[in-house]
């Protein structure tokens, strides 16, 4: 749901920038498994967070990122959009207390 960005292979994650932002992980078929963010306290920003998540989530072999300082609101937006499109959160995202709902239409 990160619009207009193609998937990158997991091996390329080490070359990511250290910026704040949001990211999605997917399996080989392009199914989104996890949506995360690299915030103001993330060590090495997106690079650190994506590398860590790829090692943690079974089946994750691709990623895509979006650099943004509005990482908290964008993260929630991506979760809500995924929920609206698929009827639930990605498999590796746990419940998110107080998550709102979108009906983009």
């Amino acid at each position: 749901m990160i619009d207009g960005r193609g998937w990158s292979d997991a091996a390329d994650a080490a070359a990511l920038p250290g910026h704040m932002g949001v990211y999605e992980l997917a399996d080989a078929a392009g199914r989104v498994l996890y949506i995360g963010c690299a915030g103001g306290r993330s060590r090495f920003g997106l690079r650190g967070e994506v590398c860590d998540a790829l090692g943690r989530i079974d089946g994750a072999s691709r990623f895509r990122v979006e650099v943004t300082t509005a990482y908290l609101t964008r993260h929630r937006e991506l979760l809500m959009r995924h929920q609206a499109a698929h009827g639930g959160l990605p498999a590796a995202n746990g419940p998110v207390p107080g998550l709102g709902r979108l009906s983009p239409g």
Partner: protein
Amino acid sequence: MDLALSEEQTLVVDNVRRFVREEIEPLEASLDPDADELPADDYRRLVDKTRAMGLYGLDIPVAYGGPDIDLVTRTLIAIETAQHRAGLYAPCYGVFGGAGLAQLFEATEAQKERYLFPMLRGEKKGFFGLTEPSGGSDPARAIQTRAVRDGDDWVINGGKIFISGADRADFGLVFARTDPERGRAGVTCFIVDTDMPGFHVRRVVHTLRAARYATELGFEDLRVPHANVLGEVGGGFAIANDRLSRQRIPYAAGCIGVAIKAHEMALAYVPQRETFGAPLSSRQAIQWMLVDNEIDIRNARWLTLEAAHRAERGEDFRKEAAMAKLVATEAGSRVVDRCIQMFGGYGVTKDLPLERWYREMRIRRIGEGPSEVQRHIIARDLLGASLR
């Protein structure tokens, strides 16, 4: 007006100040710098503490179970609860509670049972839906969302923007035009359930306020029963206007609290930081910034407490609330900007709260009526009805 605090006010302010410094600030050290929520366990623990302090639900009238605290003291408390990183938009992360949509205190008994009381018990959340893409400062003319009567229902079509909390709300107050020929008398306030067919949260609107986002709403043949009209048909403008006037005092108080905290940080920093062999505090350029901060804060505090005093006495306070909002938001912006200048590079890092305050303070000069609208309100009062 006597600005000296009473013995009781001093005690309350000291308690709240200690609460912010001992309970809130240490928690923030482990939260994301843009966070606006506490972990659930910490939130519940701190709500229990504010209840024990007798300070939970400060804005709730006594008749509805709120503490019996006057508006001036509540303003002093609002200045204190803003004095931490998230304090401008999430003072103490909400652990002091609040009245939510205060307009519902004027609702019918049936509406109170369905919306007000569950909201006060924390079982339902509401949103306030006034601003539209066509504008928010002039609701009498800007509201284009239409509501048309159809038997016992109203059918609403249109949209809203910059609406906080709508994606998580159970209901909301939606202002719609019910008579296009009657200007401000043609606007009506409806209580809308968010699970009604035709209610859509179209998107998140990202702003400088990185944590508490806004949303854009769409209404497509949204059918609302006539029983959900709040107040009178055509009485929506008065409901909106009253809310905007009242909201300006706590809005100003939050800016003053953040300015005080930023100023205190600078006062502690400049004697320690050395440049060219001398502490920053010995430089006249720095001293003048500190002096200007002090004057800005005192000006804003005086005007805000004056507005609170007038409102507490039941006097017209619209002009004073506009002055307080105008001066506090602009002064707060200047204070935070000067403090960042004194802290140099560290001031713009996420290690310190200044960068967040700088972003969020910028919104305050627009939200709840921009500075220009406040000046218009004050000028209209000074010049009377001849200024239109």
